[in-house]
Structures are given as structure tokens and as C-alpha cells.
């Protein structure tokens, strides 16, 4: 076998590898190499992608790692076979788990324990043997080399020669050659590859600076000295090692003896601890039967047949225990009262419905099980469950305890370089001033690091920013080179793998910041490895639901969220009026605009609404036809009679992924599994050639079933336009359930609902201040924080919303606990001194409480309270009985007290509250400017909403969430919400205005707009604005009158 590179760093060496995996594999194949190894630092995260990239290029993948040993020296290890790979995983796990986080190091004992199946190369200049030789300690080098030879055996230990143009190489090589002869081991040539081509050296250099927190002008021993560590061709390597051809030959021999170490495509199911005498299929069948009786009451033939079919597929695919694991953890959640909701395609399964995993009746809704799992389907089905955010970790802890740490770990995720992160990291490393780097990064929208150059031309807020592109030429080029490279490993939000065999045989495990074990693969790799993943996600809305329930039950103990009537007309009217701020999934401006037109009045409408505002239906131009047909303005028509039963419930429009599968089945005769493969192919591999091929197959098969070519082509064009970005019906139905119930809470229990929303921030579309003002606009009184009345979070007090103490800036959990614990109902705090003595919270917290107005009930003069605070000395050391170092100012109200120190002005108090709470509590910012705006003829948002369609108006307000969703035309359209003290107003900005005014939209907090009132829904719906001019608005804040 010819030469192969055996020491290669991919980007998964995290800031120490500047060559992409696919590019490495392609170049190795072009050079005619038979194999390629990957040897990242202390991880095998690249393994799956590397395996796939090599397979695609016809190369043999050799999996390995450059492992750090205790003391900081390196060794290059290669897996000779699957056993070697398992040992590599165990060794790398040991390196991580036995040391502090992010400082992995393996001991020699661990090396000895896990040496089987591994080949050891002596490594780079930081390797055990070379580093000692370079330090002049030949005796110690000999001893270490002997030990490694003994650990691995003379035929599996190699002395690694690297000719990469570094000082001392001649002497080092002479020693290594001598040592090899003395020990009877072989030499092997390597190039310690860190970048693909010679000219990519600067990318590696900048990444190294980013990794070592240095700048280009700094000297650092880990900086590469030259551009030699690239993927040299076999010819270049032969020239370099002209005097040592056996080292080259040995590289080829090693490559030949290594077997592929990964065995992808083989499912690895978790093991469920079964009761004695029970089998997994038997227990699952029993639980499903019980669940079916509970869910359906009477088991009809249809139900029985469907459940049998699903159980048969689950059994044939071996997923019985997977379902039992999920059922078991949800049983635990129910027992603990932890709210959860299934999401995703699992709701396509009636078995999942019977087990309580999903709340959508797949049979009643005629949902397609094959969208979830089928015999033909190659991909792993996913069960995703949302839990209330505060308590999700209890579920994690249960799973770990139930299945053991050896078998459970979180899935990893990789933070990859995007435009902003690349500019920040690389800009700093290249020595640009931090302020400049920050300014450039802030002006970049969310886009790939390879698009920065183009963004200078097409993104107005960047183009008009005055930032000189030429100055950042090198930075932009370097950012482009690292686009999409992983920057560091972190933990997936909810992905958990549970395995039957010990995890460490399949993947290295390390410790996440939260103290949970995490594997070194991400969710896609996990699927390719055949590991079964559970997605246990945090959904803050479920926490808000739970808080709402608790608050409502304090005045109505009989309230039952799960028994909310399914057809409450008032809740539907609320949605139809677009009054959906805070309602799960229905609150975005696009959703609100849809409700005004769709006028939903039944659950099906909400499911459709959830599915309609997605890129698929929007790009495929399905929203308007759907609305018109739903309202009976356009007749429902079908291209072919066979489509009627499939598309009837969506008025002839393709809205759900399940329908794509059914169409392929009914029209073209695909098996359900084949049809799902078609859907997945459309979703993931949208190359023109593949789509053409799928289309040809669809049309050909449809024709054999009597469908005309023109009709078949048109049907295919529908699903083609839609499939890549569509939504699955089961998922939409699961979301619509929570959407409807939260609309009900908002309609019937608004104070409790707003309090719960505000207590569970951050979540949803709108910032807390907007929610607070929205509550106020709905007639709910908002009361500021009060030390004697507020709880930690928002509460409802006589129908009013009371701001919680946790809102006060800088107040930690410990201070909160002390404040609330020390407050006794019978003895509220009487004064600042009393408060300080009873709680001993620190001065900054007390200061912020005063400025937030939380102590107004103790004394109405905030400035006087601050004076009093200054007289207390250090409140944390205050003796309960000792006299104060200074006499405090007079307490309480009374003649002379108010006048002793003048209080802050209303305007000062407003700014202080804003700073201490992050809320404009007493006045809306736009209300302060209202007089000035009125004088300029600027309308309020409420006035614009009520203005006649087509009127040209001026309006000002705070901008909320400007965004640029994909459009059918590909042109940029910006949508945002404008807020003032009266209302929220939806604004649309088309391309030409965006190109003129984009800088203001994306950089200014307050805007002054001119535009035309637009109204697309019924005549009585609120107006929106199509802007013709946008500019920043600067508020002139003079002292405001008190309210």
C-alpha cells in the first residue's frame, strides 16, 4: 500500500486544525493515497464525518487521536480495529474524566490498560520521546521508548519522523534513527498535518493565536513557525524522506493493517430492566392495551388493527425497549407532577398516544405512522418531549440513576464559526482593537462566515456603517476559510443517549459544565452511529402554564388545565382578533397577520396556523390559497381525484409532511417507507440532479397508475416546492394543543397568565417590558416591586400584577431567599434599618431595591433612603442591637421628613427604575415624548391601527425583533413590531426602503416612520404599516410631570 498520512488534525482539534474534513479526504484521494488518518487532540469527534468523507472518496479511514499524557506530552494513537477504537474511546474518556475540565491527560497506567488494538506513534516534538531527545535527555528518552514498546509491543510502537522545517530536526532525527535500531522498532514518516495547502498556513496561525489568546505580534511556543504542516503529496514526502524510504513504506504498511473501526448503521438500543418473566414486546403490548382502554374506552376494530400494525413494526425494528424507556421516564414525570408535552413526529403513532407520550390522537386525526417509523426507513425515529424548564434536570437525573452513568450521557453540539463569532475571535487574534472588532461584529447580521464580503454590498446597516472593508481584507478572508469549523464542544440542550453496552466502548465521554457526562458526538453523528437518542427539552411555556395553574387555583381550587373546554368561542375570538401576544406559537407578527385573515374558529384552524407560517408554505405560496379556500372565497379543487381524501382537511393545499408521503403513496404507488425516503431526500439532499431523478421516478410511477403526465408533473411540483421546509401534522397538532390552551388562559385568566409569562422569561417573541405594557393595555393594573408584598417572581394581587423582587438588578438567589424568609406576615419590615438588620443583604442590593421603588412603602422619599443607607455602614456586618455609627435621618412620614432631603424628580426616578428593573414601569418611553411627537403630527400606534386603509401617516415607537425571513422572490423584506404606550403596530419594509433605511432599522432602538396604512384582513381588523421611510428617533427627555 502506498504512502498515507497518519498524523492529521481536522477542525475538531478545535482551533488547531485549519483544513476541512471533506477537503482533506478529497485532496488525499486526488494525491492517490489509499488511506487517511485523523488524529485530533484528545477527541474523536470528527470520526463519523471523517468516516463518511473518506468513504465518499474511496479512502480507508483510520481513526485515531493525539492523546495528551499526564505531564503534558503527546502520543499519536491509531485504532487498528474496532477493539482499538473502543480502547481509544476509553482512554480518551479516562483522560477527560480523571482530570479537571478542559485539561485532559491520560496516565501511563491507563495507556497500559487500554493498549489492545492500538498502534502508537511517538508523536510530534511534544511527544514523550522527541521532547526528551530535544531536551538532551537521551537516557530518559530511551527509558520511555522502552516502556512504550513494552506497553504496545515492538510491532505496534513506531518512532515518528516529521520533517517540517523546525530547528533541531537534523539532530532529533539522528537520535530517533539510532533509537529505532537499538529498540528494534520501526520508523514512520508523518507530516503532522494542520492545514491543507501551504498557503493556508496563515489560517492555522491565526487560529493558534485565538486558541492561545495571543495576537499575531506576540511570540508563543505553540505558534507554527512555517508553512510546512500541510497535506503533502506522496511525491513530496518521498523527496523529503529521500534518505529514509523505509519510514515512508512503514506509513503505507500501517495504513494497510488498520481496519475500519466504525460500524455505522447498526442500531444500539437501550436495555429496559424488565420485571421477572416479562419480555419487552410483552410488556409494551400490555401497557399499550391499558393505555388504549384509558384513551379510547372501547377498542374498535380500527384501533386494534392500527395498534397491531404499529406494534409489529416497532417489534420488527427492535424498538420495544426504546418505547419502554420513554414510557418509564414519563411515568416518573407524572408521579412527580412535572408537566410535559410530546412534540414531533412521535405523535403520528397511536402507540405513543396510548402510552401517554403524545397527546394527539393519531387514529382520529388519520396521522401517518410511517412518517414516524417504517420498515423501509433508514433513519432513526426521534421521540422529543418538552418539559417545564425548571424541572427538566430532575428527569435527566432520573434517567442517569435508572440506567447508570456507564450507559447515559448528553449529546454534544458544536459551536461553529459564523460571521460574527469568526470576526470576534479572529479579529482579536489579528490584533485589531477590540472596539473595532465589536463594532464590525455588531453590524453583521446572522450569516455564514463565508458571506461577510457579500454582506458589505447587500446589507445596508453594514454598507452604510462607515466601516472600511479594505482594512479587514485579511480578516474577511481568514473568516471565510474557517466558515462552519467547530470552535468548541458544548452540550446539546436536551439530547440524551441511553445505551445497552457501556457508552465508552462507542464514544469518549467527558464532563459538561453542568456536571453531566457528555459524549463527543453531535445529534447527527449519534444517528449515524446507531445510538438511540431521546430529546428531553426545556420548554419555558410549560413552566408558565404550571405557574398559571398554581396562581388560578389560589382563587379557584377546581380549575383543571387538562379539562379546559376544547371549543371555547371566546378563546378563538381572541386569536381571530390577533390578540395573541404571549400565546404559544401564535404570537409572532406573521401569525397575527394570518389570524386577521384566517379568522380561526376551530382547532383545525390553529393546527393549520402553526403549520402555515413556515418557510415551506410561504415559499410555495400556499398561504393565500389556503385562506381563500378556508373562507369559501375560492372553490376547493383537486388536480386528481386520488388527492381528495389526502388533502380534504387542508382544502386541497399540501400543508403537512404526512400529506407528501400519502401523495407519493396514492399517486405514484410508492410504499410508505419509500415515500418517506422521498420526503427525507427532498429535505436533506436538495441537489438539482437528485430532485430531477426523484421527479422522474414519481412521474413514471404515477403514469403507470393512470395519472396523466401533465398532472403528475404538477403534483410533483407542489410537493417539491413544499417538502424541504414543511411541518409534520403531528407536531403542528401537538403545538396547537398548547397554543389553544394558552389562548384560553390569556382570555379567561389574563393576570395570572401575564404574571406567569413574565416570571418565566426569557421566552417567546416579545421582551418583558412589552409584555408588561401589553398587560397594562389589557386593563391589568401593574404594581411596582414592594419589599413587603412582592414575592420573588411576578404575582397577582387583587387582580393586579405585582412585579417580583427577582427583577431587581444584581439581586441573587441568596439575597432573595433572605429577604423573603426574614419577612414575616405579622411583622413586615418597618424601616430600612429594620430591613438591613433582619436580612443583612449587601449595600448594592439595598441601593437597587430603593431605586426600583421596592422600599417606597417604608419611606416615600428614595433619596432620603439612600442617605439612610449610607449611614448604615456595611449592612452585611450590622449588629442586630448595636447602635448605628451615625444617626439615621428621621424615619417614616411626617412633617419635616419629606423636606429634610428633596426626593428625586419623576424623570430621575423613571431612569433609575429603568436601570434597576430593566422595565419602564411608571411611564412608557414613548409617552414621555408624546407631546413633542404630537406637535410634529406623529400619530400613536393605536391611531395608525384605526386609520383608513391607504392613508399616509407618521408614527414613532420602539422597534421589536426586526427580521428578514426567506421570501418566494428572494428579495429582502423586513418585518418588525413597533411599540408605543397605546398599542403594538406591525410594520413591513420592502427591499427599496430597506436598502435606503436598513441602517436605522438594525441599529436604532427608537424609530420614526412614514408609511401607508395597510389592511389585508377583514375591514374591521387593525391596520398595519408599509413603511416608505424609516429613521432613528432621538427622544429629548426633559423632566416629566408626575402621573
Amino acid at each position, binding site marked *: 500500500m502506498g504512502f498515507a498520512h497518519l498524523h492529521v488534525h481536522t477542525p475538531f482539534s478545535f482551533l488547531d486544525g485549519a483544513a476541512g474534513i471533506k477537503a482533506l479526504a478529497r485532496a488525499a484521494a486526488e494525491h492517490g493515497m489509499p488511506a487517511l488518518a485523523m488524529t485530533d487532540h484528545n477527541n474523536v469527534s470528527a470520526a463519523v464525518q471523517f468516516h463518511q468523507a473518506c468513504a465518499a472518496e474511496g479512502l480507508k479511514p483510520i481513526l485515531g487521536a493525539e492523546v495528551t499524557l499526564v505531564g503534558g506530552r503527546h502520543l499519536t494513537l491509531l485504532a487498528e480495529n474496532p477493539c482499538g477504537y473502543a480502547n481509544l474511546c476509553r482512554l480518551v474518556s479516562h483522560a477527560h474524566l480523571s482530570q479537571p475540565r478542559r485539561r485532559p491527560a491520560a496516565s501511563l497506567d491507563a495507556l497500559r490498560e487500554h493498549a489492545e488494538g492500538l498502534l502508537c506513534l511517538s508523536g510530534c516534538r511534544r511527544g514523550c520521546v522527541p521532547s526528551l531527545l530535544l531536551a538532551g535527555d537521551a537516557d530518559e528518552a530511551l527509558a520511555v521508548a522502552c516502556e512504550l514498546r513494552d506497553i504496545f509491543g515492538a510491532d505496534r510502537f513506531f518512532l515518528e519522523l516529521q520533517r517540517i*522545517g*523546525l*530547528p*533541531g*530536526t*537534523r*539532530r532529533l532525527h539522528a537520535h530517533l534513527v539510532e533509537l529505532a535500531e537499538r529498540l528494534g522498532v520501526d520508523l514512520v514518516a508523518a507530516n503532522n498535518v494542520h492545514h491543507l495547502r501551504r498557503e493556508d*498556513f*496563515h489560517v492555522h*496561525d491565526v487560529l493558534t493565536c485565538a486558541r492561545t489568546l495571543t495576537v*499575531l*505580534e506576540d511570540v508563543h511556543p505553540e505558534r*507554527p*513557525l*512555517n*508553512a*510546512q504542516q500541510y497535506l503533502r503529496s506522496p511525491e513530496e514526502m518521498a523527496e523529503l524522506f529521500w534518505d529514509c524510504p523505509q519510514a515512508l513504506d512503514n506509513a503505507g504498511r500501517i495504513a494497510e493493517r488498520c481496519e475500519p473501526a466504525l460500524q455505522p448503521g447498526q442500531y444500539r438500543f437501550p436495555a429496559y430492566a424488565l420485571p421477572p418473566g416479562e419480555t419487552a414486546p410483552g410488556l409494551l403490548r400490555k401497557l399499550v392495551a391499558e393505555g388504549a382502554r384509558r384513551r379510547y374506552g372501547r377498542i374498535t376494530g380500527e384501533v386494534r388493527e392500527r395498534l397491531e400494525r404499529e406494534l409489529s413494526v416497532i417489534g420488527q425494528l427492535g424498538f420495544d425497549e426504546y418505547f419502554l424507556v420513554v414510557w418509564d421516564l414519563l411515568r416518573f414525570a407524572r408521579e412527580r407532577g412535572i408537566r410535559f408535552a410530546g412534540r414531533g413526529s412521535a405523535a403520528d403513532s397511536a402507540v405513543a398516544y396510548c402510552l401517554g407520550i403524545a397527546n394527539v390522537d393519531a387514529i382520529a386525526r388519520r396521522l401517518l405512522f410511517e412518517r414516524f417509523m417504517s420498515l423501509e426507513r433508514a433513519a432513526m425515529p426521534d421521540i422529543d418531549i418538552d418539559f417545564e424548564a425548571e424541572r427538566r434536570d430532575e428527569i435527566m437525573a432520573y434517567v442517569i440513576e435508572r440506567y447508570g452513568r456507564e450507559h447515559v450521557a448528553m449529546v454534544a453540539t458544536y459551536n461553529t464559526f459564523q460571521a460574527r463569532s469568526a470576526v470576534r475571535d479572529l479579529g482579536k487574534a*489579528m490584533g485589531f482593537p477590540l472596539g473595532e472588532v465589536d463594532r464590525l461584529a455588531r453590524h453583521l447580521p446572522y450569516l455564514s462566515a463565508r458571506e461577510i464580503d457579500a454582506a458589505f454590498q447587500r446589507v445596508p446597516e453594514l454598507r452604510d456603517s462607515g466601516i472600511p472593508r479594505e482594512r479587514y481584507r*485579511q480578516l474577511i478572508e481568514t473568516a471565510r476559510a474557517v466558515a462552519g469549523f467547530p470552535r468548541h464542544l458544548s452540550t446539546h440542550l436536551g439530547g440524551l443517549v441511553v445505551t445497552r453496552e457501556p457508552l465508552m466502548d462507542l464514544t469518549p465521554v467527558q464532563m459538561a459544565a453542568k456536571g453531566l457526562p457528555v459524549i463527543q458526538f453531535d445529534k447527527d453523528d449519534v444517528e449515524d452511529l446507531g445510538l438511540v437518542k431521546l430529546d428531553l427539552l426545556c420548554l419555558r411555556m410549560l413552566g408558565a402554564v404550571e405557574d398559571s395553574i398554581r396562581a388560578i387555583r389560589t382563587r379557584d381550587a377546581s380549575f383543571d388545565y387538562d379539562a379546559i373546554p376544547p371549543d371555547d368561542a371566546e378563546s378563538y375570538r381572541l386569536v381571530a382578533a390577533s390578540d395573541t401576544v404571549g400565546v404559544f406559537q401564535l404570537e409572532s407578527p406573521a401569525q397575527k397577520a394570518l389570524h386577521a385573515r384566517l379568522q380561526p374558529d376551530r382547532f383545525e384552524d390553529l393546527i393549520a396556523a402553526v403549520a402555515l407560517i413556515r418557510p415551506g408554505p410561504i415559499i410555495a405560496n400556499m398561504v393565500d390559497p389556503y385562506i381563500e379556500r378556508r373562507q369559501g372565497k375560492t372553490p376547493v379543487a383537486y388536480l386528481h381525484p386520488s388527492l381528495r381524501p389526502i388533502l380534504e382537511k387542508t382544502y386541497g393545499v399540501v400543508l403537512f409532511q404526512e400529506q407528501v408521503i400519502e401523495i407519493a403513496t396514492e399517486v405514484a404507488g410508492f410504499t410508505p417507507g419509500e415515500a418517506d425516503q422521498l420526503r427525507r431526500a427532498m429535505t436533506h439532499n436538495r441537489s438539482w440532479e437528485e430532485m430531477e431523478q426523484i421527479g422522474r421516478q414519481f412521474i413514471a410511477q404515477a403514469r403507470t397508475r393512470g395519472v396523466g403526465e401533465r398532472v403528475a408533473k404538477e403534483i410533483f411540483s407542489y410537493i417539491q416546492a413544499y417538502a424541504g421546509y414543511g411541518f409534520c401534522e403531528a407536531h403542528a397538532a401537538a403545538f396547537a394543543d398548547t397554543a389553544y390552551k394558552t389562548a384560553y388562559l390569556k382570555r379567561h385568566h389574563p393576570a395570572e397568565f401575564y404574571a406567569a409569562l413574565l416570571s418565566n422569561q426569557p421566552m417567546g417573541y416579545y421582551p418583558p417590558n412589552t409584555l408588561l405594557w401589553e398587560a397594562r393595555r389589557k386593563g391589568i393594573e401593574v404594581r411596582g416591586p414592594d419589599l413587603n408584598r412582592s414575592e420573588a417572581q411576578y404575582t397577582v394581587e387583587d387582580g393586579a400584577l405585582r412585579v417580583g423582587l427577582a427583577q431587581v438588578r444584581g439581586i441573587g438567589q441568596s439575597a432573595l431567599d433572605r429577604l423573603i424568609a426574614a419577612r414575616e406576615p405579622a411583622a413586615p419590615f418597618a424601616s430600612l434599618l429594620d430591613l438591613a438588620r433582619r436580612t443583612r443583604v449587601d449595600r448594592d442590593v439595598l441601593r437597587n431595591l430603593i431605586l426600583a421603588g421596592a422600599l417606597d412603602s417604608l419611606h416615600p422619599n428614595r433619596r432620603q433612603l439612600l442617605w439612610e443607607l449610607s449611614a448604615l455602614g456595611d449592612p452585611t456586618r450590622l449588629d442586630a442591637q448595636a447602635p448605628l455609627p451615625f444617626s439615621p435621618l428621621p424615619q417614616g412620614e411626617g412633617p419635616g421628613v419629606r423636606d429634610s432631603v428633596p426626593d428625586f424628580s419623576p424623570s430621575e426616578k423613571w431612569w433609575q427604575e429603568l436601570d434597576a428593573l430593566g422595565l419602564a414601569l411608571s411611564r412608557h418611553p414613548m409617552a414621555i415624548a408624546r407631546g413633542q411627537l404630537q406637535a410634529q403630527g406623529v400619530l400613536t400606534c393605536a391611531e395608525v391601527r384605526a386609520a383608513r386603509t391607504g392613508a399616509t401617516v407618521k408614527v414613532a415607537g420602539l422597534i421589536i425583533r426586526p427580521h428578514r425571513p426567506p421570501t418566494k422572490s428572494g428579495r429582502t423584506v423586513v418585518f418588525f413590531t413597533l411599540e408605543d404606550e397605546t398599542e403594538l403596530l406591525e410594520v413591513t419594509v420592502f427591499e427599496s426602503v430597506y436598502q435606503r433605511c436598513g441602517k436605522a432599522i438594525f441599529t436604532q432602538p427608537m424609530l420614526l416612520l412614514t408609511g401607508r396604512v395597510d389592511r389585508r384582513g377583514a375591514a374591521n381588523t387593525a391596520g398595519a404599516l408599509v413603511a416608505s421611510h424609516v429613521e432613528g428617533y432621538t427622544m429629548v427627555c426633559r423632566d416629566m410631570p408626575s402621573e
Partner: protein
Amino acid sequence: MLRLADRTLSVLETPRGDPQAFLWRGRRVRVRQIVDDWEEEGCWWRDEEPRRVYRVLGHDDTLYELHQLAASGWRLFRTYD
């Protein structure tokens, strides 16, 4: 004693491009041994030239540090005697 020179140099190279002899202060210095050699990319961000560095022992028992710059050719950077 270390002496900085930083002068251009006329060098006779071996077929592999290594220095074989050079002219220094009007006399021919024969390279007896290449003691060490390496490559430096230099300050690429300031458009500095990459170079190959040779530390050689001359027949006069003086240690010379020769730099072979990518575009500007050979320079004698310093000597040790």
C-alpha cells in the same frame, strides 16, 4: 563571539539547494557541515518574506547563519566564532 552582519551573499548551492560555499569578505568559505536548518514564515501579516535558515560550520571553524529568502536571495545574518 556573536556578530550581526545582515548582508547579501553570493552562495554556491548543492543540487538539493543547500549551501555548499559562499563568498564572505572577499574570500571563499567552504561549508564543512550544516549544523541545523529550518524554515520561518516570518511576519506574513506584514508581507515579510518567508526564509530558510541554515546554521553552517565553515572550513574556518566559524559558525555562520545564512538566510535564504524567497524573493531576495541569500543573506548572511550573523556569525559566531
